[in-house]
């Protein structure tokens, strides 16, 4: 089966793509049997780990809040490999939250800085 996301040729029984981690259930007509009590991922979903954004906020915005995002990104991949779909989804959500926290702090800090210096500049001009 070819992965619809990255085109990698996977084994037909593969649950997730070995290359990009996308869930490969799209062709299955019936929902997968829940034999062992493991929650199967819904068809056609992927669990993003937001690693790129975590690195962006850590290194390119000088923000320590990006570190937890990197840690959760690592957990997403580890749990996906272990077959823990729910755990991977939870870690993915946490990674996303920390990326947005970093982005918010960076945006707020920048606006705050511009406000202070803008006010200082105006006073200087007057």
């Amino acid at each position, binding site marked *: 089966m070819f992965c*619809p*996301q*990255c*085109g*990698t040729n996977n084994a037909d029984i593969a649950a997730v*793509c*070995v*290359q*990009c*981690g996308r869930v490969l259930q799209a062709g299955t007509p019936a929902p997968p049997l829940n034999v062992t009590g493991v929650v199967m991922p819904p068809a056609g979903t992927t669990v993003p*780990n937001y*690693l*790129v954004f975590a*690195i*962006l906020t*850590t*290194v*390119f*915005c*000088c*923000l*320590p809040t990006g*570190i937890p995002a*990197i*840690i959760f*990104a*690592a*957990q*997403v*991949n*580890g749990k996906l*490999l272990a077959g823990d779909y729910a755990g991977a989804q939870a870690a993915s959500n946490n990674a996303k939250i920390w990326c947005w926290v970093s982005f918010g702090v960076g945006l707020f*800090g*920048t606006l*705050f*800085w*511009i406000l202070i*210096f803008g006010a200082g*500049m105006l006073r200087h001009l007057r």
Partner: protein
Amino acid sequence: MQSTITKRTLAALFIAAVGLVLLRAFDPARSWIFPPCPVHYLTGCYCPGCGSLRAIHALLHGDVHRAWAMNPLTIVLLPFVAYGLFSEILVGLRGRGLPQPRLSSSAIYALGCMIVLFGVIRNLALVPFSLLALGAMLGF
């Protein structure tokens, strides 16, 4: 009709383009429009990302040596981050990204440790680590 995700991608692209134009036009070392690193501002220590804006500013002017001296980690990670971001843009525009390597969790932990470690050793007053401090390779 464009989907929400396409519109968001286009908006993000626009903001990024404005940012890059500003970053090329104004030197973060001299201009006040770019905020200082909060870590350096509060503690006086260089964080892993200190100098990244100056590094990209130097890159946008074609000065690779200066960019490397400002923040080598940024230059090392930049191609990977650029590839990942380009893939995200493609996902937003056509619904399918570029092939992504599936990093193992230990590889990502190692990457995180490398970033933190870089932030620590560039504050040490010991050659060769002190060369990693902001601009040290330029003789600041």
